[in-house]
Each structure stands twice: as C-alpha cells, then as structure tokens.
C-alpha cells in the first residue's frame, strides 16, 4: 500500500494519505482540519478542531473481514431527524473501498454494487430478490469528518437517503447533488468487528435485542415464510383442539335440582356421584338458576370427596344476575348460569357436595308474612323441629338451581391460551412489517 505524506496548512503537521491517488479529501489527524488533496497544492477546506478521539474504530487500524485486510482510512458521523450513526471508510488496494456502519450498536458491512437495483412497486429488485422500502426518505447531515475520502466531504453536507430491506440485507440509496449512490449492507456481528480490529465490542450487551430484530425482520411477501408460519400455527391449533376433545371431551352424567334459600347459607348438600375413569380428568359442574330470578347472587362451594380416601377437592362457582332501569332504559348484568372446571382429578369415585350462600341485591328480601300464623309461636322465636325454616314468617324465598356434572370436560381456556401463544409471533411480525404504513 502506497502512503504519501502532505503537510497540513493549518497546523503544519504531517498527514499520511493511505489511498494516495484515490483520495481527494483528508482530515488532519492532529488538528482535525479538512484538507483538499485533489491538487498538488494542498488547500484547507475548513479548520476543525474537535478531537477525533472516541471513535469506535480508530483511523489507521487494520483488520481482516471476509478474508480481506481492510484499513480504516476515514470516518463520518452523520445524523437525521431521529438517529446518529458512524460510517467508516475501509480501503484495500486490491479490493477497493468498503464501509463499516455502526448504527444503534449494530454493525453493517457495505460495498457498492456494480449491478444496480431496478425499481419495483413498493421496493426494488436486485439479483433476483425483492427488497421492500424501509421507511420514507430522510435527510442525512454530516456532523463530523475524520480521515480521508474519495470524494469531497465536509461537515454540514447533506444527502437524501432511502433504505430497502430483505431479511438482514439492506440496500441503501443516497442522492446528493444529482448523484445517486447505492450501497449493499449486511449485518455483521459486533464480536467479529471487535476481534478483527482489536477494539471493544460495543454491541455485546444488545445480543438479545439483535437476535430479536433479526428474527422479526420480514422479507417481501413473495419470499416470505410468514404464510407458511400461519399455516403451521393453524394446523397445530387444529390438532391441539382434536387432541383436547378426544382426551377431555365428555357429556353430563349427573343431574340434580335444589331449592337454594335466599338470605342464608346451606352446607353439605350431596348432589350426586361422579366416576373418574382415566388416570387424571377434568370435572365440569354447571349450575343454572331459574330464569325468573334476578338481583340475586349465589356462592357455590363444591367439594368432590373421594369415597376411598375421603380426600376432598374443592372448587368454586358463582351465579349472579341483576336487572334494573336507569335513564338509558332497562339493563341486565350477569348470567343465570355458571360453569366450574375442576382440574387434575385423579381416578376414583367421588361424591359431589355443595355449600350455597344466596343473597339479594341490594339487600336480602324480607320474609313474606304468612297469614297462617302459628298461635303458639307467632313471632317464630323457635323453629319447628326438623324443618330449619323460620316458622310463621318463614315463607322463605328460594331459588331453584339445576346442577349438571360430568368428568372429561373440554378445557377451552387451555385452547385459547394455545391459540394466543401460537399466533402472537406471526402477529408481531405482521405488525413489524406494516408498522410504517
């Protein structure tokens, strides 16, 4: 590699030109001034005294990437309305120029393609692949220059840029003063750059974010694996549904009705018997109160008691139904029925018991007066033996509740969860693809 030296007209320091014959501008490594070296007499473009220290890649550093030894000969810092990034010009006398771009702690390696992309409807086509447009056009401004370049560049220069993306490949288009430049960029691992140029890896703490970004990067529709992914998810969801129905499906085997008193609780009412025949099964219990009941709620505490072990499995249900009228008209809330799913019931024969606790809203109903007073007990101070009722004031309100129970229910909650887990990722990818539209 031929190295020439010129004298900086600003500070008198010696400036080495690594790509002599190609470079037309160089920044003095000592004072930072930008120099025009396209003519024999070196002229000062602009004096610039900001330190070039702190660049992620030092000017003059050499490293091997892709079996080519590159030397960092120039560095630009550019920004648009949202981001700032570094562009490093690499040079090899046999391979020419290349770029390393550090944007958001992600390294990209760029070469200028000889064969230019052709325009398409919503992107460009290049080497048989479709690249979709990634965002709109942005105005990029050079905010810092160090090293040497093959074109005149100075701080404040602007260019219009567009990006086209397919997977981890990016085609970058720059337009400045009527000149159009394409660059093909590919993602390189920060660890590879750090190893090649013997610099700290500035991307190591973003390895997970980088992997997620790469996973979500969506290629154009005709090359996309998204339809295959959605199809795979649908087939899996269908298979899971069939599997759950086959293993878990069942129909009611126990029917029982009960008059549930309002305003007090009952305990230990036996509803029937459930036989669980498989090693483990779901048990489903459905309760429905009469349709004419309203502004009432019933707490239902179930106990499945194993006849052999006396072990009890408890579960809970709630029926509540309210109705009323306000300025918007009549309204209802709640349901007359409820279903309770008991999970992980081992094989065995079980007696199903229920404790009830029913109440009215906003308050319990007052007992209706019974004109057939018991003269001996007019205020119902003592309840008639064996009835549990409240005597002469004991036209106690009850709600008819029908119970059904069966082993082997379909766990719909599991299936909906399965659907959510299967399709979250494709949904995020679709959003990611169309987030700019």
């Amino acid at each position: 590699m031929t190295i020439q030296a010129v004298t900086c007209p600003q500070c008198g320091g010696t400036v080495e030109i690594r790509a002599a014959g190609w470079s037309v501008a160089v920044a003095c490594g000592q004072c930072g001034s930008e120099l025009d070296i396209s003519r024999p007499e070196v002229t000062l473009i602009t004096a610039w005294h900001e330190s070039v220290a702190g660049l992620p890649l030092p000017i003059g550093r050499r490293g091997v990437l892709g079996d080519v030894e590159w030397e960092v000969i120039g560095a630009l810092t550019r920004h648009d309305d949202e981001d700032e990034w570094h562009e490093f010009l690499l040079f090899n006398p046999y391979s020419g120029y290349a770029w390393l771009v550090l944007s958001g702690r992600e390294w990209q390696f760029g070469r200028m393609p000889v064969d230019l992309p052709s325009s398409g409807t919503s992107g460009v086509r290049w080497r048989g692949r479709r690249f979709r447009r990634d965002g709109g056009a942005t105005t990029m401004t050079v905010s810092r220059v160090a090293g040497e370049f093959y074109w005149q560049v100075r701080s404040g220069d602007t260019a219009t840029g567009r990006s086209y993306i397919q997977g981890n490949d990016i085609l970058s288009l720059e337009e400045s003063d009527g000149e159009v430049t394409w660059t093909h960029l590919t993602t390189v691992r920060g660890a590879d750059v750090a190893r090649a140029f013997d610099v700290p890896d500035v991307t190591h703490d973003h390895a997970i974010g980088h992997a997620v970004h790469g996973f979500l990067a969506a290629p154009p529709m005709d090359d996309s694996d998204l339809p295959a992914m959605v199809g795979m998810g649908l087939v899996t969801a269908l298979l899971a549904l069939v599997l759950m129905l086959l293993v878990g499906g069942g129909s009611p085997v126990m029917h029982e009705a009960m008059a549930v008193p309002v305003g007090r609780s009952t305990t230990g009412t036996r509803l029937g018997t459930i036989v669980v025949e498989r090693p483990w099964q779901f048990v489903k219990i459905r309760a429905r109160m009469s349709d004419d009941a309203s502004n009432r709620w019933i707490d239902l505490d179930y106990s499945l008691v194993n006849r052999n072990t006396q072990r009890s499995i408890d579960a809970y249900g709630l029926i509540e139904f309210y109705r009323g009228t306000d300025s918007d008209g009549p309204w209802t809330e709640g349901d007359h029925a409820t279903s309770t799913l008991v999970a992980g019931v081992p094989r065995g024969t079980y007696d199903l018991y229920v404790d009830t606790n029913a109440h009215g809203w906003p308050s319990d109903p007052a007992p209706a007066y019974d004109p057939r007073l018991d003269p001996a007990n007019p205020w119902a101070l003592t309840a008639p033996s064996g009835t549990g009722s409240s005597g002469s004031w004991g036209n106690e309100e009850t709600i008819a509740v029908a119970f059904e129970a069966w082993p082997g229910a379909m766990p719909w909650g599991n299936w909906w969860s399965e659907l959510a887990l299967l399709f979250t990722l494709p949904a995020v990818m679709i959003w990611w693809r169309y987030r700019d539209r």
Partner: protein
Amino acid sequence: MTMTKRLMLYAAWCLSMLAGAAISSYFAWSPWSDEDKPQANGPSGPNHK
C-alpha cells in the same frame, strides 16, 4: 420451499405447543380451573352505573 431458520424455530415452537397440549390434557391440568375463589368476600353487586 426451503425452510428458513426462523421457520424451523417456529416449527419447533408449534411442536412444543402440541406436546404441551397433549401433556396438559393427559394430566387434566389447566391454569384456568376454578379451585380458588376469585374474591374473598363474595360478589358486591352489579357494576352497572
């Protein structure tokens, strides 16, 4: 069509989901069962305003 790395990862995810469905069905396991009371003090009436 050749399977991309992403598609292979998703296929593995689908298989794990199917295996999860099979295992949870066999053991009759569900995070949505009703063994626990949703509220300690019972219902408090309608939410209608």
